[in-house]
């Protein structure tokens, strides 16, 4: 009855593999191929070797986009992780409203980025936004949340923390629930205080979860696009233009497909390296 295992496995895998090959595998190789060409939609394709890559590292806009992306990664990663961790501590603690808190903390994550972006654009609005209204009422001058180049990226990070910290909370609280109660009990019997339990038990035992959250967060942050696209359009003065947005503009506003592909390859490599590091770390654990 099981003579046709290979054939059946192939048939069941085929629909997935066709889609996968056409829209994931093929674009990877097509992108690498395109990255070696100078190709405006108007002109023909010209092979130029590694020129696009060399050009990228002399292109001020590319470098500043890369810098802003790194800035976003460095600001948002610790913030979302710490907030997510504190949320997890709160929801696993025996508080009466723990379940409500978990729901509320996670809620923003289900919204799309354009909804989050438009909502926070309104909250951050300089003259009539609620945040500045509150500040002014307290006698503090309003802030150009999205209009001041030195502040805008931080505002985007605030909106991002609100949007995604609940996601990290879920991962952390799942990890916390796996720590056996006996571990805590014996620590308490030994007279350990709350802080000792937190630093000597909870945090070390959550190491794997923390590494997972960290890697996911870094990868997600490198791919940032919607926040700045909706909230600032990359401004003011390009201060929040990130890598994906520059790729998007290069391709669809300037029609430089070869150059945009080369930058996509660079983004791909950055994320690949982070993924490989994750893989290596995960393997070391075992």
């Amino acid at each position, binding site marked *: 009855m099981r003579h046709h295992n290979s054939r059946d496995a192939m048939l069941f895998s085929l629909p997935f593999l066709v889609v996968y090959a056409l829209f994931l595998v093929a674009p990877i190789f097509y992108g690498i191929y395109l990255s070696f060409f100078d190709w405006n939609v108007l002109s023909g394709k010209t092979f130029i070797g590694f020129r696009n890559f060399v050009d990228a590292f002399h292109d001020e806009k590319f470098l500043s986009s890369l810098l802003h992306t790194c800035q976003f990664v460095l600001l948002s990663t610790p913030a979302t992780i710490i907030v997510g961790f504190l949320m997890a501590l709160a929801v696993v603690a025996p508080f009466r409203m723990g379940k409500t808190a978990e729901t509320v903390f996670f809620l923003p994550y289900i919204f*799309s980025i354009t909804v989050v972006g438009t909502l926070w654009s309104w909250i951050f609005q300089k003259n009539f936004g609620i945040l500045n209204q509150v500040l002014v009422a307290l006698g503090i001058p309003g802030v150009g949340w999205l209009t001041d180049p030195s502040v805008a990226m931080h505002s985007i990070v605030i909106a991002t923390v609100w949007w995604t910290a609940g996601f990290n909370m879920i991962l952390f609280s799942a990890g916390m629930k796996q720590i056996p109660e006996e571990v805590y009990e014996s620590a308490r019997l030994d007279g350990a205080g709350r802080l000792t339990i937190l630093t000597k038990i909870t945090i070390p035992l959550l190491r794997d979860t923390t590494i997972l959250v960290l890697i996911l967060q870094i990868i997600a942050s490198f791919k940032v696009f919607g926040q700045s696209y909706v909230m600032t359009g990359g401004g003011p003065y390009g201060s929040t233009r990130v890598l994906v947005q520059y790729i998007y503009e290069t391709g669809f506003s300037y029609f430089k497909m070869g150059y945009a592909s080369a930058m996509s390859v660079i983004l791909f490599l950055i994320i690949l390296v982070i993924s490989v590091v994750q893989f290596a770390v995960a393997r070391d654990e075992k």
Partner: protein
Amino acid sequence: MRRKHFGEIALALVVVIWLAPVLWLAVTSLKTEKDVIVDHPAIFTTLPTVANYIYAFSRTGIARWLLNSTIVSVVTTVLTVAIDAMIAFAIARIRFRGSKALFIFVLAGMMVPFEALIIQLYLQFNAMGLINSLAAVILPRLAMPIGVFILVQFFKGIPAALEEAAYIDGAGRWRVFWSVILPLGKAAIVTVTILSFINAWNDFLWPLVAVSDTAKYTITVGIANFQGTHGTEYSLIMAGALVASAPQIALFLGFRDQIVKGIAMTGIKG
């Protein structure tokens, strides 16, 4: 005891702060334009109005965009679950050479940032003559490696006895897949369905690239565009944003535990 009370109060405060933006979204959407662009705005409007919602549905493309998003999300979800479940069945329940390699090949897809593929995908769909169509929005999202991962883990845990019995009764492969594995794998199917739907509904960058005709916008692209065309009409924009989120809010309230479990299980980030 006092410490416990302090904790409760602090947590309640944070919960209120976290919920405040959503409340502000709802409250703004019920105000008139005149009540929004003012100094010292009232927290709660005394004269709530649904005019913004009526305007949004009658004078903007929002109804159309909702329809587009519904089509895209439903079709994407049904097809994703189907093809993911089929390959997961092959990997988890059929013994064949190369099954492990196939699984690794599929999982490797999780490392590929979709954002790095938009240029090539655009050119591919343009060459296929499918750009600016809902099909273009749907197709690249169908093969969802994380869905395969969830389903394979779950299918592997199903006891072999039932499957064996079905084979002995003369059932074919398809029959076993359809009447044994799928019903027993319902929990995982539900998780993948919800994740796929939310991903499809919230997708932004690819629909932005794939579609240029406003009548073909999905709701995420439409809402982003709203800001451009309605500038400072914040009450209208907020009404649109809330309408755009209605399906996820409903899904979240109905399937909160499955969503949370799905995320805890896989750690996917949309």
